């Protein structure tokens, strides 16, 4: 087996929370990411799902150092990059790119498409002079934009076209790993399909490894080889996409899948839904034991006592539930 391209080991990102303007006192710690271990093999697409506040975006940001890790390690191409000093990390950074959710916010409104795409090429010394122009038009064609639009500004494009520009910018440096953080959530259904097709095509064409983050499980299932489910900073289930989607083992994953409205009124009428009470606890004050137990319909007293580890339940499928054998 080849070595994973990305290796997260017990990754932790904790944020201290202070109160008071003059006399600052520590209120507590938000455990946004709390001991996540995850491997992504070369060429693989892993989908990371979870609801808002579960820490999935923080995890993405920690990998590329937009937020500092407070514990654990990040390995990339076989090296531990979380220990690297800034200049050494910067040398790796071109091969590690991020696409954000909101193409309205992630592009500089004062930069033309040409400027936005030329910048990474120039910063990393990959092209100069006439070469830049050629590379930029190649990139635009790659993502399905006409190069004649390269002197236009972001506001002159639709949401879908802007996301294409953001994707082109991430691909400008020919990355090995692309982390896409909710790249289609802000888009309309018909446009979403275009962007998903584009991502799938580019993945084949460029041999990309993808960590695809979304809250929409049907989108993640469509695109991923494996799915990881996150809840309050921890992975609660991990496995082959079809397995996790069709035979979820963790109660939270079950609830999540049963909550997705299906565009089929006949099935909607008969479908069993896992009813959850309450809302996720605050990551500032997570419940004891299994983070999901206060909302879990199958919880028993012992669930409040220990944090269940991820355990294997057949063929690369893992779930973190002490009642796993009964699920």
């Amino acid at each position, binding site marked *: 087996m080849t070595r994973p391209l990305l290796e997260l080991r017990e990754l932790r990102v904790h944020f201290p929370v202070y109160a008071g303007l003059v006399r600052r006192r520590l209120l507590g710690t938000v455990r946004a990411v709390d001991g996540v271990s995850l491997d992504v093999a070369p060429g693989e697409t892993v989908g990371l799902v979870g*609801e808002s506040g579960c820490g999935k975006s923080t995890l993405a940001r920690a990998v590329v150092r937009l937020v500092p890790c407070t514990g654990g390690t990040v390995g990339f191409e076989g090296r531990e990059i979380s220990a690297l000093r800034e200049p050494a990390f910067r040398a790796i950074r071109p091969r590690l790119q991020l696409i954000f959710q909101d193409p309205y916010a992630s592009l500089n409104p004062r930069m033309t498409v040409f400027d936005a795409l030329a910048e990474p090429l120039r910063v990393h010394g990959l092209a100069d002079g006439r070469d830049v122009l050629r590379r930029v038009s190649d990139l635009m064609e790659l993502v399905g934009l006409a190069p004649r639009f390269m002197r236009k500004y972001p506001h002159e494009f639709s949401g879908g076209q802007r996301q294409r520009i953001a994707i082109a910018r991430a691909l400008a440096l020919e990355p090995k790993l692309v982390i896409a953080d909710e790249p289609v959530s802000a888009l309309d259904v018909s446009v979403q*399909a275009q962007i998903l097709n584009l991502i*799938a095509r580019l993945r084949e064409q460029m041999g990309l490894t993808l960590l695809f983050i979304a*809250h929409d499980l*049907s989108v993640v299932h469509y695109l991923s080889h494996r799915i990881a489910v996150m809840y309050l900073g921890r992975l609660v289930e991990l496995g082959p996409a079809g397995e996790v989607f069709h035979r979820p083992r963790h109660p939270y994953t079950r609830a999540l899948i*049963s909550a997705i409205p299906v565009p089929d009124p006949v099935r909607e009428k008969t479908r069993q839904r896992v*009813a959850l009470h309450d809302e996720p606890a605050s990551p500032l004050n997570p419940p004891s034991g299994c983070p999901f137990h206060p909302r879990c319909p199958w919880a028993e007293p012992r669930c409040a006592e220990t944090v269940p580890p991820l355990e294997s339940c057949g063929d690369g499928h893992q779930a973190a539930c002490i009642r796993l054998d009964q699920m």
Partner: protein
Amino acid sequence: MPLLDVHELTTHFHTREGVVRAVNGVSFRVEPGETIGIVGESGSGKTVASLSLLGLIPAPPGRIENGTALFDGVDLLACGPKTLRSIRGRAISMIFQDPMTALNPFMRVGDQLMEPLQVHRGLSRREARTRAEEMLRLVGIQDGARNLSAWPHEFSGGMRQRVMIAMALITRPHLLIADEPTTALDVTIQAQILELLARLQRELGMAVILITHDLGVVARVCRRIYVMYAGQVMESAATEALFARPRHPYTEALLQSLPSTHVKGEPLHTIPGLPPDLIAPIAGCPFAPRCASATDRCTRGAPTLRELVPGRATACFRVQDGEL
């Protein structure tokens, strides 16, 4: 007799760049106690149509150019601001997508809940407070007394949307207009809110207009659906019929572009191109430039919504003529 009968509603915005034809001759009706869905992508005019009914369109630049909307014998589009004010918040309530911006951050939750009762029903503060507590319990917020004195920022998104719902329903309206009420929420919370809306609807016997882009949500809760595109209704049908066999190429294309209707790995169906610019006048069917089945005729003349069988209408020439 329908509770609400909207006929040929037309709302335009007169901007410096030109006239934006946001809503163009939209007709729909709501029977007492039923839930209808208005589905469309961004810019389809679904929100402008509902805001027009309640006189909430900023004017200028907005102007209602044409149409009638009969609610309980009163034409909402012609009755004037005073009558409208007495209907809005009492007989017709509305909830919005983003519960953070829709709640007043400087008012305690309780005061916001009690306000409609004091304004519309003339209740005393004490009576209003009791009703507000009851209403919070009804939407699943326990410990009403304490939560009434909380500020909106102390609540999570799901809790805020519950407060919004409580606020909208506290006057026991006959009609609730819910504009993307769960779009900003996580799916498990969305499921809870949709269930809550359905339960309250049964208990209070009100009608609901659900405006959303999410075809899964309408499949779950609506009895009838209107599909909008470029400010027009493209198709209307009972929910089961619409999903079983869409009778407009746009609806069909929209359903086909959902990842959940695909086998993994096969490319998703897409709709080529973009929705039309509503400033430029549209000759013919607004969907024609993106439609795989369009003919010359579709770009020459504009089709109107016509009933195929009772309760089922389409604005496609080719379907109307039995060619598709």
